[in-house]
């Protein structure tokens, strides 16, 4: 089964109710099972520039690589799947592009972006992220965060300084500990997860999860899974109805069918002889 036929993907981005312009960038490519979402930061329009570079580097480079080699193959250098390596390598590549642009152009000094990107292949999804843009998963009744923010608050939660409940009272929100383009190198966090038919994946910028409680996001997806574009619209509406203090972007991916990669001629022959 082709990824193309197995996935339904929709995306939406909105400047919110307060900001004059949108520093988020999103893109997806159904044919390659790729989604990319970046939330830029920096003065003037540098935020848009940073997130725009990140998204275009990822989209074009990942596509380019996957036209040469399948994502389920092994990457010789790292030993990981090509699908994992291609995300990691290109987040680093985007990092360097943004960093170099920031170094050479004074108006872009200090710009950077968070990123979350997913590659769906062979009934799995590889997810790379840097900063506080997130991926959530709805599987059956269970809605949960899959990525863990690279933020001061998350570190405090992890080290037990502050509980998840108390973290809502913190005055230190929006402090990320990793970002793309700020330094010459970045370490993206990359993981590989199995997917199941019926799963819905939500990629979003913090403009959504800062404004809408996880519980409400989950309930919305649960109720509107039959109409993905409407679910995306409703999520953005809820963020804006609650104040919309930041740009808000969402990408929704629904797994409609299995998309296991056929395992070569030998595998096919073997299974044929078994029967």
């Amino acid at each position, binding site marked *: 089964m082709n990824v193309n036929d197995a996935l339904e993907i929709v995306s939406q981005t909105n400047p919110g109710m307060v900001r004059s312009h949108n520093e988020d960038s999103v893109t997806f490519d159904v044919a390659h099972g790729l989604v990319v979402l970046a939330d830029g930061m920096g003065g003037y329009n540098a935020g848009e520039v940073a997130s725009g570079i990140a998204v275009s580097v990822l989209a074009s480079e990942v596509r380019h690589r996957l036209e040469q080699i399948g994502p389920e193959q092994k990457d010789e250098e790292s030993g990981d799947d090509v699908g994992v390596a291609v995300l990691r390598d290109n987040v680093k590549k985007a990092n360097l592009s943004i960093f170099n642009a920031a170094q050479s152009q004074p108006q872009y000094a200090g710009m950077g972006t968070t990123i979350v990107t997913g590659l769906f292949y062979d009934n799995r999804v590889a997810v790379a992220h840097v900063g506080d843009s997130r991926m959530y998963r709805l599987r059956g009744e269970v809605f949960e965060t899959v990525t863990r923010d690279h933020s001061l608050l998350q570190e405090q939660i992890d080290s037990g300084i502050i509980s998840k409940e108390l973290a809502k009272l913190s005055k*230190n929100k929006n402090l990320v500990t990793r970002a793309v383009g700020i330094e010459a190198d970045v370490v993206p966090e990359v993981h590989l997860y199995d997917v199941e038919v019926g799963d819905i994946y939500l990629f979003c910028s913090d403009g959504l999860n800062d404004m809408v409680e996880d519980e409400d996001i989950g309930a919305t997806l649960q109720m509107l899974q039959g109409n993905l574009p409407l679910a995306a619209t409703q999520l953005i509406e809820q963020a804006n*109805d609650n104040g919309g203090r930041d740009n808000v972007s969402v990408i929704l991916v629904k797994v409609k069918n299995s998309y296991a990669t056929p395992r070569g001629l030998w595998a096919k022959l073997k299974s044929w002889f078994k029967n």
Partner: protein
Amino acid sequence: MTAKLILSMDGVVIKDYPLTKERTTIGRKPHNDIAIDNLAVSSEHAAVITILNDSFFEDLGSTNGSVVNGAPTQKHFLQNNDVIEIGKYKLKYLNDQPTQTSSADFEKTMVLRAPVKQSKPEDGFNQTQSNAGAVAPKHESTTQFNATAPKVDVAPAPVAPAPAAAPTGQTAVAIIQILNGPNLGRELELSKNLTTLGKPGVQVAVLARRPHGYFITHVEGTSFPLVNGTSVGEQPHQLNDHDIIELAGVKMEFYLKT
């Protein structure tokens, strides 16, 4: 706008202590940042750890203990106006930093710089603190931050448009009453932000509660819901009091109960 502790006894203010250090100690010995020369106070009684705009109180195993807001406390995440009691002394915590949930300007995401190559520190607490470096404001701001100061200076924030009051605050509660079929007369209160109606796979619509009213939107199915006999199409349609909705053969009335 640094957070501070105000030391008082019997309602008389003794001194203000701005929380400018990462660790502010409280105790009887003079080397403490807040030295209280009283026998009920242990030599090193307690400490307040401040991380940017948040402060945490911790009793250091004192003989007579500490009380925060009337309850004996070991550790506590301080909130504006909390009162710490040590013996007969009171320390009031003031932090009128606008909380980010009420300030648009402060909503900017900043980067706390940490060396990329470094392995994850055991003690995230000190690590993030000591490495808190240059930060990049996320939104059109040209403010330059001091590269070594972990403190983020923020200009008085413009007042964000107050989040519109949810209709829950109003006296009216929206109700859907079924007008035909086996569930005739049954009522459904629209208590959540979203409520779906209909039969999955056949026809489903969603009712969204928004600050300026209730909206019905088609979700799935080949036909669209009817409101007062007219198809609403694919777009959200605002509901008025006593509108009649028809969906998957079921007729219902939308009304507001006061």
